[in-house]
């Protein structure tokens, strides 16, 4: 079936040429074509890009946009996901619960902690390291790059397993720190910190390499010009390099804000299940539990839509803010 569609694509793709190139030189070779009403011919000529987009758009429609619409619908109902049980319309009841449930408020607070806690490891420290190493050349640089990047490639379950072993009461971390048999992941005080540390370990190298690449993209001329004018190394960094690096840094910030809750998800699922006493859970993990453990699809959908809206607003604000600052600088 695809074969047929694509033969048509090739055919109409060739048809488009006379129209675009001006002069219907090749068309008279086929008298039938010339007799076609111009509107239909133009429609055929306009078709190819849409046909190329079709498979991708179909995937998006079926697996992304239709589910979003259905999530909005579900959020107004009470339903336990079983085909046999009825859906009851409950209006804004689910949304009211989203904003009043203490469990969700705790999860939102944890999510905020994850975001704030990861910013130093996704932006500040990587920027400092990238600035520090930018003059290193050659082979040593390649080796460091290769080593630093390794955590990013590790399967999430393997990462979780290794860290659970490192942080085991009898593991090497306690051994090295001389802490006896402290259980990092089972104590309310340290569980969130432990998850944060593992996540930081995963993204630090990646962030450093992204920011390093951003630095290489900046022409050295600006810094040289500033140095000629007598600017110190720090002044050049602060007033020339960092502003030019802004779009890279903003991108990392956006990633951190939007994806912190996703990055921590597998760790939560494997290491703590959100505990102890909900001290590590984040908004998405709780949502998953509502949906697939408590089978409260309405609440899960309402929470999903709400969090999505909040994240989207924050992202839009960040982009806008960056725009304004870039104007101030220029």
């Amino acid at each position, binding site marked *: 079936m695809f074969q047929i569609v694509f*033969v048509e*694509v090739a*055919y109409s*793709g060739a048809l488009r040429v006379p129209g675009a190139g001006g002069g219907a030189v090749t068309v008279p070779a086929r008298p039938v074509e010339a007799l076609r009403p111009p509107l239909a011919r133009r429609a055929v000529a306009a078709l*190819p*890009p849409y046909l*190329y*987009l079709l*498979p991708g758009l179909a*995937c*998006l429609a*079926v*697996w*992304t946009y239709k*589910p*979003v619409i259905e*999530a909005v619908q*579900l959020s107004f109902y009470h339903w336990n996901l079983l085909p046999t049980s009825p859906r009851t319309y409950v209006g804004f009841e689910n949304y009211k619960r989203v904003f009043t449930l203490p469990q969700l408020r705790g999860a939102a607070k944890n999510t905020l902690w994850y975001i704030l806690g990861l910013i130093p490891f996704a932006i500040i420290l990587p920027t400092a*390291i990238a600035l520090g190493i930018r*003059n*290193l050349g050659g082979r040593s640089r390649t080796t*460091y*790059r*290769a*080593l*630093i*990047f*390794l*955590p990013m*490639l*590790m*399967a*999430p*379950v*393997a*990462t*979780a*397993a*290794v860290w659970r*072993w490192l942080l*085991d009461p009898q593991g*090497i971390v306690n051994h090295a720190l001389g802490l006896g048999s402290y259980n990092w992941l089972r104590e309310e005080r340290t569980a969130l910190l432990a998850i944060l540390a593992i996540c930081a370990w995963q993204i630090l190298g*990646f962030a*450093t390499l*992204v920011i390093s*690449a*951003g630095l290489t*993209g900046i022409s050295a001329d600006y810094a040289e010009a500033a140095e000629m004018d007598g600017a110190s190394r720090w002044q050049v960094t602060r007033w020339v390099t960092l502003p030019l690096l802004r779009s890279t840094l903003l991108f990392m910030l956006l990633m951190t804000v939007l994806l912190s809750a*996703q990055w921590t*998800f597998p760790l939560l*699922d494997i290491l703590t299940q959100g505990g102890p006493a909900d001290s590590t859970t984040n908004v*998405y993990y709780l949502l*998953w539990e509502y949906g697939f453990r408590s089978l409260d699809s309405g609440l*899960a*959908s309402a929470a*999903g839509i709400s*969090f*999505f809206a909040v*994240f*989207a607003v924050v992202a839009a604000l960040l982009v806008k803010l960056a725009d304004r600052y870039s104007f101030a600088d220029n």
Partner: protein
Amino acid sequence: MSSMRTSRLRAATSHSMLALLSLISVFPVYWMIASSFRRPQDLYDQSLLPWPLSVGNYRQVFDSLDVVGLLGNTLVIAVVTAAGQLVICLLAAYAFAAWDFRGRTVLFMAFVATWLIPFQVTMISNYLVLSNLGLLNTLAGVIVPNLCSALAVLMLRQHMQAFPRELLDAARIDGRGSWTTLWTVVVPNLRPALASLSILLFISAWNEYFWPALVLQRANSVVQLGIRGFLTAEGDDWGAVMAASGLACLPVFALYLVMQRQVIDAFVRSGLR
């Protein structure tokens, strides 16, 4: 003289910073491998070098898990997902790069916006669809919903826009259709970009955790869930758990060893834009 000294000092600082960072990055990976080769009775001995070496942990993993089956299933999922994403997104990127058409911006935004929509918003209804189609607990159920990747469309479109227009026009003058042009002109010229993108897509699919965990509830399906099951069942048998984790990372690490530069470039480019 003094400027030479400061620059040497600076280089030394850079090196020590990077060495420390590398050590932090690599140590857990090393510890995984080291623990997996310890004899079971030496496990809690925290010496940095495991000695004497033993493959007992691996033997135990192979005895209690269908390792080959797990790796095979994961490989099928990762390869088919990456290949499907590559073809579908190649076609879409081609449409965006080679034509001006009505609704182009809106449709492009429709692709980009999927990057913002969290998986957790769509999971319930996708789960229901798969369950209605009878695709739960099948590999197809993991693959099919992930066949379009916004990232791939973005990256390929970028590469294609940098592609010289004259070549496309020449092909057109030769009377080649757009379909032939895509496969005989565009794709051969994009080979490096396609290669690094396919590595990125393969690794992402291999490491995907969330969706397989939902669709394949059995532990004996993909390697990620296999380890998770093992972790709950064997609890503190760390030697065996580390051996299983090492096996799960092996294909990606092997790929990394061979194509280190392409892997890093692909990931870093995905983070630049």
